[in-house]
């Protein structure tokens, strides 16, 4: 990149907010996946106007812009491929919490947990709970339509976005949506930008719907199963039951083996898998609902089903879940977290597919995830330095997506396509639909300046991905 561009960016943002030292390029080249590429320059705008000005420089010099929040994405969506890494973390102001209208207006760089905390202090609730909520930004959550365990009951980020301020590639500042929960006034452009992974515009401000807090009593349902068919039946039955839990998480036998030291008494040894559900209710209703849900699991063929309301017993159960990540990391250094999602009735068949893939490709494949949404997280534990293993891992990933699609599912439930899954897009999306997506992209970003090389397969820069360095 020429010094001219850096100079122009510095004159827009000030010298402290345009960085290009090798250390800065390295540290803004990654997200939470195993891919990384160096940007040419890293910029930190502080206002919508500054974002516009950065885009003006980018347009003038035909330099691509890669928008990034905290870099916790799991699909390479924010990984720069050269060009300008546009980091939104300075735009972290909560502009308004409107208690009367149950909404909040925030800049895109606000950390999710900071918003959750601020609205909690006002007696309100922002439900989306991505695993990285303490780090991730609202802008990133919108760009990838982030979910989380409670999405089963509350839905993903997109369900809470009422309106957006978006800077388009040509510098136009769009305001979409509004302050109302119902809004059928022209096309729903808000939804268009949700999950668009920074390819259609740069989200600078978000108006979010808030809820009253959930009922205060918390219980945990733990059920274990001798076979995957029974586990699948229970997922369907729990999802369809009027007493359905707030979250519906599963953990397979390979995960259970890894955290056997933490296995709570509610889960016997040697089962095929277990369900862990959070149940939020009023204190007087909690026991009844837990009994109800136990019964649902037993009818589906559960080996054990226990509704736990004791605080320390619940802590034991969730401690096992929390122990999973470190325990898994001790096996091998590289963890590839996939996000394949299937219709919930297909879960047992898909789990069986995953067992087959594990054996066929000889990979350490563990499955846990948001079963209630069909959003399983097949995780492959491997070592990126082992070329032979990585070839088998890549083959296994191909198999996983083929299986998910064959079962009527999709590539991503909550991580997005980013860099890592774009090569599967032609298989996942009908050609006409993909063509329509491309037309939309070229309409809003005709010069392909915004996050090029993402989401769509075989774009000009796709070769760089192959030749790029992995970190």
């Amino acid at each position, binding site marked *: 990149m020429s010094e001219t561009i850096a100079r122009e960016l510095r004159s827009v943002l000030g010298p402290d907010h345009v960085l290009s030292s090798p*250390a800065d390029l390295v*540290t803004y080249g990654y*997200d939470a996946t195993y891919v990384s590429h160096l940007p040419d320059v890293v910029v930190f705008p502080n206002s919508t106007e500054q974002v516009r000005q950065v885009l003006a420089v980018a347009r003038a010099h035909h330099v691509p812009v890669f928008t990034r929040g905290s870099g916790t994405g799991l699909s390479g969506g924010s990984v720069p491929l050269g060009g300008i890494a546009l980091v939104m973390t300075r735009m972290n102001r909560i502009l308004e919490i409107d208690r009367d209208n149950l909404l909040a207006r925030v800049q895109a760089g606000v*950390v999710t947990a900071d918003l959750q905390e601020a609205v909690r202090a006002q007696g309100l609730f922002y439900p989306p709970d991505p695993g990285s909520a303490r*780090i991730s930004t609202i802008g990133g959550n919108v760009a990838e339509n982030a979910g989380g365990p409670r999405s089963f009951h509350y839905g993903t980020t997109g369900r809470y976005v009422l309106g957006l301020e978006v800077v388009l590639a040509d510098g136009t500042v769009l305001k979409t949506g509004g302050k109302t929960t119902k809004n059928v006034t022209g096309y729903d452009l808000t939804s268009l930008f949700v999950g668009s992974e920074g390819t259609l515009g740069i989200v600078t401000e978000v108006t979010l719907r808030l809820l009253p807090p959930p009922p205060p009593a918390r219980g945990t349902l733990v059920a274990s199963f001798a076979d995957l068919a029974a586990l699948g039946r229970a997922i369907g039955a729990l999802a369809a039951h009027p007493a359905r839990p707030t979250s519906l998480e599963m953990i397979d036998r390979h995960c259970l083996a890894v955290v056997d030291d933490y296995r709570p008494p509610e889960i016997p040894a040697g089962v095929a898998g277990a369900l862990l559900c959070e149940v939020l209710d009023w204190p007087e209703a909690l026991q009844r609902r837990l009994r109800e849900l136990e019964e649902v699991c037993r009818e589906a063929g559960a080996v054990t089903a226990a509704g736990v309301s004791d605080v320390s017993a619940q802590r034991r159960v969730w401690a096992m879940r929390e122990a999973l990540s470190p325990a898994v*990391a001790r096996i091998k250094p590289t*963890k590839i977290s996939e996000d394949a999602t299937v219709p919930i009735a297909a879960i047992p068949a898909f789990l069986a597919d995953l067992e087959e893939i594990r054996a066929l490709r000889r990979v350490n494949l563990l499955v846990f995830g948001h079963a209630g949404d069909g959003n399983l997280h097949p995780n492959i534990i491997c070592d990126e330095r082992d070329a032979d293993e990585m070839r088998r891992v890549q083959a296994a990933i191909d198999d996983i997506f083929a299986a998910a699609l064959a079962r009527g599912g999709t590539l991503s439930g909550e991580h997005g396509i980013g860099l890592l899954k774009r090569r599967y897009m032609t298989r996942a999306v009908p050609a006409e639909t993909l063509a329509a997506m491309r037309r939309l992209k070229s309409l809003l970003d005709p010069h392909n300046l915004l996050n090029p090389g993402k989401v769509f397969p075989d774009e000009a820069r796709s070769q760089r991905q192959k030749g790029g360095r992995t*970190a």
Partner: protein
Amino acid sequence: MSAAAPHYGETAARLAVAHTEATRCIHCGFCLPACPTYQVLGLEKHSPRGRIQLVKAWTEGRVAPGEGVAEALDLCLGCRACETACPVDVRYGLILETARDELAHHRARQPGQVLLKAVLRHVAAHPRRLALAARLTARLVQSAAGRQLLRAAAHWPDSWLPAALTFARALPAQSGPPAPTSRPAAVSGLESAARPGEHNTWVVKHAKPRAALFTGCAQAGLFPQVNEATAALLRAAGFDVLVPAGQVCCGALHRHQGDPGHARTLLLRNLRAFGFLSGEPPEMVVFNAGGCLAWIHEAVGVFPPGTPERAAAEQLAARAKDIAAVLLEHGWTPACGLQNGGRRPLRVVYQPSCHLTHVCGVTEAPLKVLRALPGVAVALPADGGACCGSAGIYNALHPQVSARVLERKMAAIAAGGPPDVIVTSNPGCHLQMLAGVRQAGLAGQVTVKQLPEFIHWYVAQSQKTKSPPG
């Protein structure tokens, strides 16, 4: 990217252990909210994730120290809060210290590094010299010339000097080890004529459990009253207290500043002084400084496995305990069982030593012993006890960043209104809190004490007045 430095292969070999550990990082970013420097500087290279990736890139020859890596490593506080936050248990401390050793190796001939090493070896590790240096510095900054210097420094707001002076002004003017005549309160065995391994004669021996007191360098030099209070509390809890002569600085500062050789020398001297290499080692070595205890726990690796020194270091590590944990474990109860008499409780904020929390895992015991005092309301700072910015000698080396970390810290401490007392568990934190209290304009309103000192004072006061002080 940059050309690899000459002799790069040697660097890569020395960094191999850091590189292996760095590959375990899944760059999830869970460490970012736990990192004080990321919170104040807002840049990825000043986060644990960023530093880990930089060390990895350095080892792989993709970036050179002078291209921002050294700055990123220098500005790390080393508080290790990231290790507690890490979901996959990456040993950040190992990566940081391996990389810092390598940086020190590269800088070995730079005048700054030579001076730092000399100061750490010949001043900081010696309580009397440290106390003298602190007294001289305090006198200088409070003298007419010092005030002039301060006024002049205000013209260079971004430079090291004015920031460093704000910390220097917090140095206690009256400090230093007590005169030998004041025994048995005097617990500095350093100047004793007793040979290593021998114990001071004033200890009355009978059938009580024995606890040896580790007196440290900064603690003995700047806050001798903390060692006295620790000994008094141990005696009140039923211990025979030994203060082995010949004990020296633990070496943590040297270890963290890239001088592991000297840290090893000091450890060896302490192993001898405490009788772990020959003679009869004490059942327990009690520490009142989190930084020292943490290093003693981690130091075993400086000796190869299978050597007598390694076995001795392991034995010392196993017997090294924090004062609060010892009091709690031995059922100590404060000798002031009086009710509060309707007065408002004394508001105490406990600002823990980072290494006590994140390396030693001692989090509950200090709170429990403080809460055992009647008439005291104990809280953690609103940030849960993140690093105060002291970080060994970080506030002297990087006073500007340290001041920003401290500013956030003081806001977190005063979030629920300024407390009456800030209690810490390390001499460095103690100094930093003194500076913080000044910086926040709370001088005269908020007292700073270390945990044993506070408890000892509180119990003594309540015995005198027959009711809790406050």
